[in-house]
């Protein structure tokens, strides 16, 4: 294949990714499971954590943003594929001239946009209602974008098992997301967590996104900034690669 043809193919697949992301946004952003697990869940988690505890409000803003991002960005992926399998529209996508990679990339982009877009709300609330200040804007933006990318990839990976009911996949996704939430330094800084939790926290992408956001809001990070960025990129790559493999493996079973 010539370089020109390869570039044209790549452009075409990229446009397809955008089409899939647009379709997901129109169809799934306002679906009840996305709103419940992506928006309502983190709000009540935050309230249950904050109420009655003597913590300065500005100290918990980065954690609040990270948690909102974690739930929102990873909420879209687990809904889209099972929903489309059940409606049999998934067959239309995989029989179109789009690669599985482009289709899954579209799902990741829609999760990323949903997560990053909604994370603006806790950022603005934190800045307006508390004394929190953004000290390093690029780190806040980087934490949100790279964090959303890896969380959305996790969501797409979790959508791979051949379940035709979205609720089964949502349960599976919460089985993974909830335990990781508690070892990622959201409610308690990683440095203050028990030893076993400090050992586990590096396996969660939320630890690095939370750390970048904490640093962006002028707090002390646990990991070096460069390491957190690299870790989030690495998580995105690994999770997305895994998503492609598992979706391909289970493609026929899920139809």
């Amino acid at each position, binding site marked *: 294949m010539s370089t020109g043809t390869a570039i044209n193919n790549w452009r*075409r697949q990229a446009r397809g990714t955008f089409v899939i992301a647009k379709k997901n946004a129109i169809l799934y952003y306002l679906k009840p499971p996305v709103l419940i697990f992506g928006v309502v869940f983190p709000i009540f988690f935050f309230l249950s954590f904050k109420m009655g505890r003597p913590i300065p409000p500005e100290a918990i803003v980065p954690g609040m943003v990270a948690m909102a991002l974690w739930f929102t960005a990873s909420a879209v992926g687990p809904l889209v594929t099972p929903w489309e399998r059940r*409606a*049999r529209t998934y067959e239309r996508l995989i*029989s179109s001239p789009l690669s599985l990679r482009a289709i899954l990339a579209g799902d990741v982009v829609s999760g990323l946009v949903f997560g990053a877009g909604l994370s603006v709300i806790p950022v603005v609330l934190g800045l307006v209602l508390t004394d929190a200040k953004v000290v390093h804007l690029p780190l806040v933006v980087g934490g949100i974008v790279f964090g959303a990318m890896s969380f959305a990839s996790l969501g797409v990976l979790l959508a791979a098992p051949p379940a035709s009911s979205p609720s089964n996949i949502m349960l599976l996704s919460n089985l993974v997301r909830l335990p990781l939430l508690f070892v990622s330094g959201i409610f308690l800084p990683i440095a203050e967590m028990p030893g076993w939790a400090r050992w586990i926290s590096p396996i969660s992408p939320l630890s690095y996104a939370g750390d970048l956001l904490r640093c962006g809001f002028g707090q002390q990070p646990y990991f070096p900034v460069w390491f957190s960025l690299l870790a989030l990129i690495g998580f995105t790559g690994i999770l997305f690669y895994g998503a492609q493999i598992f979706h391909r493996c289970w493609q026929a079973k899920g139809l």
Partner: protein
Amino acid sequence: MTAVIDVQKLTRGFGELTAVDRVSFDVQAGEIFGFLGPNGAGKSTTLRMLTGIIEPTSGAATIRGHDIRTESLAAREHLGIVPEEANVYLDLSVWRNVMLMAELHDVPRRQRVENGRRLLDELGLYDRRKEKARSLSKGLRQRLMLCSALVSEPEILFLDEPTSGLDVHSARLMPTIVRQMNEQSLTVFLTTHNMAEAEEMCHRVGIINGGRIVAIDKPEELRQVMKSHHSVVLCFETEGVDPEQLRSLPGVTDAKSEDAGFLRLYTEAPGHTATQIVRLADTNGWNISEIATCKPNLEDVFLQLTGENDTAK
């Protein structure tokens, strides 16, 4: 003519079951090829392999020269697909459903808008373009699927039981549109249970049973295979006609009584047999109320080749 679909020993297993077993055939450019078979024969599995939905276990197939395994994206660029179940996006409008498929096929904006308007108009959906697909009846959803499949101007259209369970109007409109498109060089691969539809529409048919191809030919050629299934159907006004005399006429191989006093005589030369029947009736003073010669139809061929006749018996 050149083969736009070339299938060689295509096989697909599901665990212990071989759903499609070394199936080989080709479809020529501009042809309407019917793929017939009883439920579970492997029709849809074959179609799903050719359209990239599932992978073959072994064998090969090319679409416009592109291998469906190694060049699946290039192969799928040429396809439009109308599945048996109209899997439209229920929460998207009619217009957005069509545009989505056009965008997935990377059809330029102006072209997709023009094609979308024209097709929705031809299929009687333009006035409902702003409504959600959820509000459409089954027949209209299937028409929408056809619009979505054709909006990218595919070279090959795959239709999986396209008129199954549709209202009369939709069931007539769909084949008409497909034939019109075929006259403009569209190649059509059609799976159907509807023998009349296959007979009327298809240039050639392949019959599959138990995962294997049992016959491929033009419908008229397949009918010729069944010479012994030509028949003369008749009914007498007179009572007391002796069927044994009719059964013993030269060339008559079998006779069956049918509903409403009709008698069917199987013969390889129905015209000659009819003449003999009229002579015999004249001699015996029997009044014939109705008489007709019948060729075997595709359904007879299908039932014979798939062994369903025996099952029915």
